[in-house]
């Protein structure tokens, strides 16, 4: 695969057309790839064998750092750097938690990995544990994803039976236990510290930071938390080597990632593309463009927690820096497309209801603020709002953002603030005309 690299991306600029290699999902079409025999026939666990045989843990961690891999869970923090925060020695055991809680609206890649190729996830988990000197890893699977959970559980069992997990893995002397944990319906448990609470059998309230998980995490021990896709990328990095991997992507956003395309497009789905691929390529070439030949109205580039972008941003390269420069965030890679017939107020209301319902309720601004925001949006959407509500919404968002306990509260404000900025007239139309610009509007939810 490495021989196609030079044709893909040069100097941080993606070529509009050309081959789009798949690294992480390369074998996802293989029938039966979810079973260990088939997975191994296609080179599965070779990366693990190679690492255990040839690469000492710290070297592997160094290699991951060199690869520039950035977390795929949302924040995009460099994985190798994060591992480096683990203290060299600590009185308590250290743990790894793989975050498979995928619940960000617009995101559906981790579920695919778990359902289609659970062994890829397991192999990545073992590699991550090995590189960070962890001997007990947890895979936290979102509760609703029952089939995904069963797939992962079976893969773990198969790996135990094959001696790929357990004592003295492949004769390397490395011991690892892997336990699959299940969520039970709470978006907040995707947040790393809430995930730890949930894993410990408690309500999913985020924890106070500092101390950060790398220092005091699960059961009080130093803890690494990585997203499912992040660890699933590790086998490829081991196979290709950091140098080859960094040839994909841009200067600061290396490699490929799985973009989840949804909303008003012809062919929604997951597309693994090099970072830096222009949004237009994803939406038009892969996604087949806006459904029914309609015009594009807005794009949410990184899951519902990220601010809106406009059609004029279509050529923005999909990498962390470029999307940020355009005024949004690459987030979890969930690209949501809205066509011209969409009522922005209704869409924002729908997203805001999500945050109201998923707020854990621990901190005041998020608990009470999201409740208030929804009430205001509801009355605006139903033509009963006032023009001054827009300033009020903005000010409530200001009283939430940066003042809450965890990023969920900040996320709840993104679509509101950005939509008022970009679509003020549409809001005001609701006030003036006591109704919607584009259609019947959202039903009460």
């Amino acid at each position, binding site marked *: 695969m490495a021989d196609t690299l030079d044709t893909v991306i040069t100097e941080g600029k993606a070529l509009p057309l050309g081959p789009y290699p798949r690294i992480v999902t390369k074998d996802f079409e293989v029938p039966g790839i979810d079973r260990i025999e088939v997975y191994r026939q296609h080179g599965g666990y070779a990366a693990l064998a190679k690492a255990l045989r040839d690469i000492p843990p710290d070297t592997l961690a160094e290699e991951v750092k060199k690869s520039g891999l950035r977390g795929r869970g949302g924040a995009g923090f460099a994985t190798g750097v994060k591992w480096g925060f683990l203290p060299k020695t600590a009185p308590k055991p250290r743990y790894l938690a793989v975050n498979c809680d995928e619940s960000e609206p617009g995101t*559906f890649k981790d579920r695919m990995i778990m359902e289609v*190729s659970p062994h890829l996830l397991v192999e990545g988990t073992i590699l991550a544990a090995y590189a960070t000197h962890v001997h007990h890893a947890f895979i936290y699977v979102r509760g609703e994803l029952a089939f995904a959970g069963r797939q992962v559980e079976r893969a773990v069992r198969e790996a135990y039976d094959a001696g790929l997990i357990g004592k003295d893995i492949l004769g390397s002397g490395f011991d690892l236990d892997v336990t699959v944990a299940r969520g*039970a319906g709470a978006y907040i448990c995707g947040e790393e510290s809430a995930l730890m609470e949930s894993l410990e059998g408690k309500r999913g309230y985020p924890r106070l930071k500092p101390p950060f998980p790398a220092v005091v995490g699960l059961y009080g021990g130093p803890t690494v938390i990585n997203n499912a896709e992040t660890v699933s990328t590790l086998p490829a990095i081991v196979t290709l080597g950091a140098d080859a991997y960094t040839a994909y992507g841009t200067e600061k956003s290396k490699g490929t990632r799985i973009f989840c395309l949804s*909303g008003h497009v012809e062919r929604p789905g*997951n597309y693994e593309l090099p970072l830096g691929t222009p949004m237009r390529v994803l939406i038009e070439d892969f996604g087949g463009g806006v459904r029914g030949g309609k015009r594009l109205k807005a794009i949410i580039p990184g899951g519902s927690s990220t601010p809106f972008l406009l059609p004029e941003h279509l050529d923005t390269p999909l990498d962390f820096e470029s999307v940020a420069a355009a005024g949004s965030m690459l987030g979890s890679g969930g690209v949501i497309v809205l066509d011209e017939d969409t009522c922005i107020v209704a869409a924002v209301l729908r997203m805001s209801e*999500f945050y109201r319902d998923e707020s854990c309720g621990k901190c005041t601004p998020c608990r009470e603020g999201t409740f208030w925001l929804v009430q205001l949006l509801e009355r605006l959407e139903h033509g009963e709002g006032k023009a001054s509500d827009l300033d009020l919404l903005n000010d409530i968002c200001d009283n939430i953002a940066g003042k809450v306990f965890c990023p969920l509260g900040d996320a709840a404000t993104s679509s509101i603030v950005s939509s008022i900025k970009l679509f003020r007239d549409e809001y005001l139309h609701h006030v003036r005309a006591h109704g919607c610009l584009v259609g019947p509007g959202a039903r009460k939810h």
Partner: protein
Amino acid sequence: MISDDVKASMRAICAEYPTAQSGMLRCLHLAQETEGYITPAGMRAVAAATGARLDEVESVITFYTMFHREPVGAHVIKVCTSISCYLRGCDDVLAHLEARLGVRRGETTPDGKYTLKTIECLAACGMAPALQVNDEFVENVTTASADALLARLERGEGVAGLGGNWNLDNTHTTGNGAGASSDAARAGARGGKAL
């Protein structure tokens, strides 16, 4: 009934973790699978297995949306109403199901067969609108396919295997052709079938 076997399974779950309490959510899932919802006996068994106090167990149950605190229908239909499904018409599907079942969201049909609920983004946005019947996915739902779904359930057929209609087809551009056809993609893990 929470049998001794179930209790033993709960203890085994808890033993997989550094602290017994970590088994909480899995034990609660097990209690719910066994009895249909979280009964007082289920709660007590979970408290015993995890070493948590009853009030802690209660506190945990109410935090998570998946635990039913009252009996539910044999088929719990959960329609995703989050943004991507919303954009692709989930509200119509939901309204249609309400009309067909004669209940509103959150309610159970008088015959105890169906409970209709809404749920937050199911990680099926690429196959929106999506819903779950109990914990199994049904995707790309239309009002017509919703009817087909109900017919299927009436016939006593399950829905396992209907979900997972993954499209990761990178062949629509002049791409490198690394991906096989989308049919093959579906066959990859689990055939996503039409209703």
